[in-house]
């Protein structure tokens, strides 16, 4: 086949909603875009362990502590599934880490915000995981097989994450006055960054069309954001919390909620590295990786020694 006919074949698989698998021919840009998208998602899971992880030792009950541990651990698992999916595209996990640590690769900017009170564990589960799920469910049908399969696993596990977050919020909102205040404060702080998680408006997102065409993005940023606003407003009513947006109102004509302007300047700055915790998060990851090097080397050295001994024993026999 010529490159041209390879391309035609690839296009026809995409059009017929047939999965692309690792050994299939694929255009370079498709491969590159996927690597960027999947590794970015994996990095987000790993960096995302930190803001919640720092509350594990402080969780207010043994049940909450166990749940939080399991949840943060799941995020490590999700990172692992996603790194594995990216590895099928010909990049190693170590290379992806290098890109993260050097600042070349991005991760979701939401994790550059601090977790200040216990209610933040609720708000993250409810809003951040809620937004993530909205993003991820359509990706279970992404065109790249290993990615779609990883997303199926992630979504299956993620469903408890949002629920446990909502349960924390509900307990606080129905608790004492001060607990309700704690919940509202967390809601206020996490709401806008959550909306930013869907990325810049469609008009400023030039790659969306290509990604939608490739079926590695199924809905646009604005579509997903709107969906998220619509469901969250209803959930906030159940909690009895106020929406942190004075411009929010139901638009009969559109059948959706209108919402206030997002501060895209803030978004751009946090992406650029000027968020409250960018430096701290990246440093923590780098430190864990560097301090783990001797451990990883030791395991490898031991495995090699054992192999060598086995060969030697076989030879002697």
């Amino acid at each position: 086949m010529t490159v041209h006919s390879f391309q035609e074949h690839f296009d026809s698989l995409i059009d017929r909603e047939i999965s692309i698998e690792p050994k299939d021919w694929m255009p370079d840009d498709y491969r590159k875009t996927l690597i960027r998208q999947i590794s970015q998602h994996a990095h987000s899971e790993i960096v995302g362990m930190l803001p919640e992880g720092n509350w594990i030792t402080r969780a207010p009950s043994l049940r909450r502590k166990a749940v939080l541990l399991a949840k943060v651990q799941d995020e490590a698992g999700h990172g692992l599934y996603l790194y594995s999916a990216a590895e099928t595209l010909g990049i190693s996990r170590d290379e992806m880490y290098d890109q993260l640590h050097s600042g070349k690769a991005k991760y979701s900017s939401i994790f550059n915000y601090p977790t200040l009170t216990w209610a933040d564990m609720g708000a993250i589960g409810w809003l951040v995981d809620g937004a993530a799920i909205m993003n991820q469910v359509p990706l279970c049908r992404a065109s790249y097989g290993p990615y779609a399969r990883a997303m199926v696993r992630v979504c299956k596990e993620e469903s408890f994450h949002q629920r446990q977050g909502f349960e924390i919020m509900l307990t606080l909102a129905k608790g004492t006055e001060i607990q309700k205040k704690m919940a509202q404060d967390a809601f206020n702080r996490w709401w806008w960054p959550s909306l930013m998680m869907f990325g810049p408006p469609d008009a400023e997102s030039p790659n969306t069309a290509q990604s939608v065409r490739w079926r590695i993005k199924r809905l646009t940023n604005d579509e997903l954001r709107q969906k998220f606003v619509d469901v969250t407003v209803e959930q906030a009513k159940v909690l009895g919390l106020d929406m942190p947006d004075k411009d929010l109102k139901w638009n009969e004509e559109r059948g959706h909620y209108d919402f206030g302007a997002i501060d895209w300047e803030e978004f751009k700055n946090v992406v650029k590295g000027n968020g409250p915790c960018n430096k701290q998060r990246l440093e923590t990851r780098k430190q864990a990786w560097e301090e783990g090097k001797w451990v990883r080397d030791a395991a490898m050295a031991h495995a090699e020694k054992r192999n060598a001994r086995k060969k030697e024993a076989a030879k002697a026999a």
Partner: protein
Amino acid sequence: MSNSKYLLDYTLRLADDALILGQRLGEWCGHGPILEHDIALTNTALDHMGRTRSLYQYAAEQFNNMPAEDKTGVFTSIALQNLINTSASLDEDNLAYLRDGWDFKNVLLLEQPNNDWAYTIARSFFYDAFNYFFFAALEKSADESLAAIAEKSLKEATYHLRWSSEWVVRLGDGTEESHTRMQSAVNELWMYTGELFIENETDNALAQQGIGVDLASIKPMWMERITSVFEEANINTPQNSWMQKGGREGRHSEHLGYILTDLQFLQRTYPGMQW
């Protein structure tokens, strides 16, 4: 001490061991040397937390069933005393979150800091090996609740021991650096291992009734396991016999205070609330 107080002391000590190590291992979550073992260590932490809860629930049940006159003076913290004075029944969280250090009976070994992977592995290895033989014995306890908890815990401890033993071998027989780190972790933590086998009044009383474990009988098995793994790992078994103690009596190292500060701060700052 009365019989019920012995059993309570015993249950609490096992719960405290599980909680303090669970808390320490939880600190690793998100900071492990490689994703796969970040996940693995958290699985272990979750096992310890699960056992913590079962044991505190059982301890709370025991306490709540005690006659009122026996309840005074069992715990030192004002927060718990106030709660008891309102004749409220205690739950697992009250026991974990409202006691002060001198009411905690965990061994000193488990409150030692994580330091590095070698320390963490050595600490777990000493304790996992102990748990493996301890729960195998406790499974036969005359106390049904403890026996049931032991049965479940033995399965977990079997895997924990396998996992930590393999890491001891990997680090001990890995690179020069890992060997040095493993050996020094073992050397420094060794003096905390003796306490695992100290028998006090509680142990003696409960061992006689077939409820508690005869610690002297599991010590040689523990020692044999430790030395055989060390041998495979090219690690020298320390010869010093001077051992630290005090945890079982509520006399701790400086580390416990900081653990409790983290653990308990929300319950202390906003008392009496549901979370």
